């Protein structure tokens, strides 16, 4: 009897230990979306009746939670289900890559992923490099669910012609543009008024202002992390050499970094490094970057490169008396020259491993509907503005001023470095932008920085994805 019990116990132990490694259930994880709350719903508890699967099936949507918050995503998903009958299982998280990463490695992909490029984990870039994204050119000619307009008629001009949406330069669209935001230099307009300073229109005026501010114990410049230099550097390349230089540079054309235009860009960044608030590099990491943003709010630094989300992100932060947000495009290189503001936007895309690609395409088309645009613009923690025609007219407050930047003379800069197949130990951020930390600390010279860029650029050119 004892033996039988022992064997039973041992078997139970073995079985219970292995039970945890069981494969995924074949049951669909479908459930009706819940009211409010951004997180994915927990499947029905044991004993309860399983939720009725939606008539049109279920898609899984994974969206990054940024300064815009996640509540708006749930509302958009609900509106989509109401319109199409397709249920949506929503996952939102600030560290979305960590949440969906492991299941994707196991082959379980969300149907739609909304993320931005330029993030630390570079998940979107990884999928671009792997050519693991479904082409969505046909979505542009689809009719927006619930409306009679085509998607391409709604998206504002230029947004689906950049390297960010068409990464392989073949005229085919792979990523849908989402939530655009003009980027530029943010400052305390109240301080400028108080001191009687004017916002510089050229880089020469910028350096003059830097000297004036230094005399008052204020640094000219700071930056949250070096990741914010992408938008800055792109706009700078446009303002120095126009679209032609930008396209050549972002395609790593041979000898491009030896040109006069490139030299001007490098000189400006290097000079700006010498005007940067000295504690900036020590705080330019994912944990302390708000301390750098706080420098502007505390009148310790004048300008920082950022996007319109900064207002929501620092809403609770203490600030100097009379603080008022101001935003300007990058100064022109010469008097009367063009000044540019980079149009930063996020992307929604369908991974090749997605199981419900047709429904996913409908979802992406729906993201440009009037209903979705309205929800994104009004129900987020700060307004998320879809790149659709006529939306800027509906804005108010700070955002009206930010989004009017293009009406006030600044030109729009769009684009990105061209995608290349993965190179061991080499990526854009470490080559172009991370060394700015060392330029500010004085541990690297401008020449060393340029040398690094040239040698990396040669390798990237050789690995361009066509």
């Amino acid at each position, binding site marked *: 009897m004892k*033996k039988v019990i*022992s*064997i039973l116990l*041992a*078997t139970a*132990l*073995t079985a219970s*230990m*292995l039970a945890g*490694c069981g494969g995924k259930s074949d049951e669909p994880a479908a459930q009706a979306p819940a009211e409010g709350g951004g997180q994915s719903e927990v499947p029905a508890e044991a004993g309860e009746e399983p939720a009725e699967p939606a008539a049109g099936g279920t898609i899984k949507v994974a969206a990054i939670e940024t300064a815009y918050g996640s509540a708006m995503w749930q509302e958009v998903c609900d509106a989509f289900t109401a319109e199409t009958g397709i249920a949506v299982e929503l996952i939102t998280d600030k560290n979305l*890559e960590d949440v969906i*990463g492991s299941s*994707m*490695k196991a082959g379980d992909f969300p149907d739609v992923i909304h993320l931005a490029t330029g993030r*630390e*984990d*570079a*998940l979107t*870039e*990884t*999928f671009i*490099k*792997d050519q*693991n994204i479904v082409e969505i050119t046909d979505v542009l000619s689809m009719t927006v669910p619930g409306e009679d307009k085509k998607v391409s008629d709604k998206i504002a001009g230029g947004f689906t012609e950049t390297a960010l949406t068409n990464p392989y330069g073949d005229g085919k669209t792979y990523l849908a543009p989402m939530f655009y935001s003009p980027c530029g230099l943010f400052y305390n307009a109240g301080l400028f008024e108080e001191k009687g300073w004017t916002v510089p229109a050229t880089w020469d005026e910028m350096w003059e202002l830097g000297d004036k501010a230094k005399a008052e114990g204020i640094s000219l410049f700071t930056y949250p992390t*070096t990741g914010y230099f992408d938008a800055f550097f792109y706009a700078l390349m446009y303002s120095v050499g126009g679209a032609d230089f930008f396209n050549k540079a972002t395609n790593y054309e041979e000898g491009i970094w030896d040109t006069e235009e490139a030299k001007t860009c490098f000189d400006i960044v290097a000079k700006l490094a010498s005007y940067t608030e*000295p*504690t900036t*590099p*020590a*705080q*330019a*990491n*994912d*944990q*302390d970057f708000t*301390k750098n943003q706080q420098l502007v709010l505390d009148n310790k630094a004048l300008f920082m490169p950022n996007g319109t989300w900064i207002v929501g992100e620092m809403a609770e932060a203490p600030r100097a008396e009379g603080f008022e947000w101001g935003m300007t495009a990058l100064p022109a290189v010469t008097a009367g020259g063009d000044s540019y503001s980079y149009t930063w936007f996020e992307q929604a895309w369908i*991974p090749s*491993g997605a199981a419900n690609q047709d429904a996913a395409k409908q979802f992406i088309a729906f993201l440009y509907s009037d209903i979705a645009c309205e929800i994104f613009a009004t129900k987020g923690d700060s307004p998320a503005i879809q790149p659709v025609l006529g939306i800027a007219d509906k804005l108010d407050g700070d955002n009206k001023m930010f989004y009017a930047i293009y009406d006030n003379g600044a030109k729009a800069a769009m684009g990105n470095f061209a995608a290349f197949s*993965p*190179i*061991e*130990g*080499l*990526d854009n951020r*470490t080559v172009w932008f*991370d*060394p700015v*930390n*060392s330029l500010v*600390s004085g*541990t*690297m010279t401008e020449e060393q920085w340029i040398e690094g860029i040239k040698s990396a650029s040669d390798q990237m050119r050789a690995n361009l994805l066509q």
Partner: protein
Amino acid sequence: MKKRRCGLHRRFFKRRSQSCAAIDRKGVMAMTKRSGRSRFIVLCLAAAVILFTVFMIIPTLNIFRMSLFVRSAYSTTEEFVWLQNFTRLMADSNFIRSMQNTILLIVVVTVVTFGLALIFAAILSREKIKGQNFFRIIFYIPNILSVVVISAIFSAIYDTNNGTLNSLLSFFKGDTVAILWKGESMVMVSLIIAMVWQAIGYYMVMYMASMASVPQSLYESASLDGAGRLTQFFQITLPLIWTNIRTTLTFFIISTINMAFLFVKAMTSGGPNGASEVALSYMYKQAYTNSTYGYGMAIGVMVFLFSFGLSALVNAVTKREPLEF
């Protein structure tokens, strides 16, 4: 067949006190018992063996295999490239810097943590100090905090303008001190301080436990012979807890390699400009954010071999005849 052999038994061993039939029964019972026992042992071990094979051996072998391929984390296509990933590693200055940082952390954090843990343990267990338990708890608390909490605490300590450390230094110096603790030149020192602070309590408690088992009589006779506190520590305490030190040293070296990754990820993201990158954080970046999974696995293999080798070396170097008391 069995019956015939029993017959022979009976004929030749008549003087046996037990009957053959009884032996048979016992033998069969013993055999059944033995096989039942082995079955039980096999069943008991099976769970551990299966789990160990599935979750340890196969993945480890898989890492070795994947290090010979060019592939990405989310894609199934792969290309066999022999040892190309390893030859690239040898020429990758960022990898070399990350290994240097790892070794620096292992050496300095281990030496400082073990030195201080031993001293504090000796003081708390051998000396009569008021509030011994209070100190024991205070030293142990960092160990139960998660790395994320620790990084938040140190973010406040290391803040250049309002941080505890700079404020304290300014107070003693009488002038404003603005050390950039997370700047390029000091970032490794900052990591070392945080890692020592986190680990010290755990090892101190471990040594206090083994010091408590050293017989008091040894110290008494040593002091009769005129041995001072220091001599007692080096001649009695250290040799008698040596086995414990040896084991914890191997543990600690391995855990430092792992903890360094967590601290870097939570405190500095490897910056500024890669100055605080360690082997595992660099491996993570290469494998997951640079789409070079095979290359990342090659770094994994190097770290695996390095920690294996280092543990073997430490084990060999610290080998002593175990002393008994």
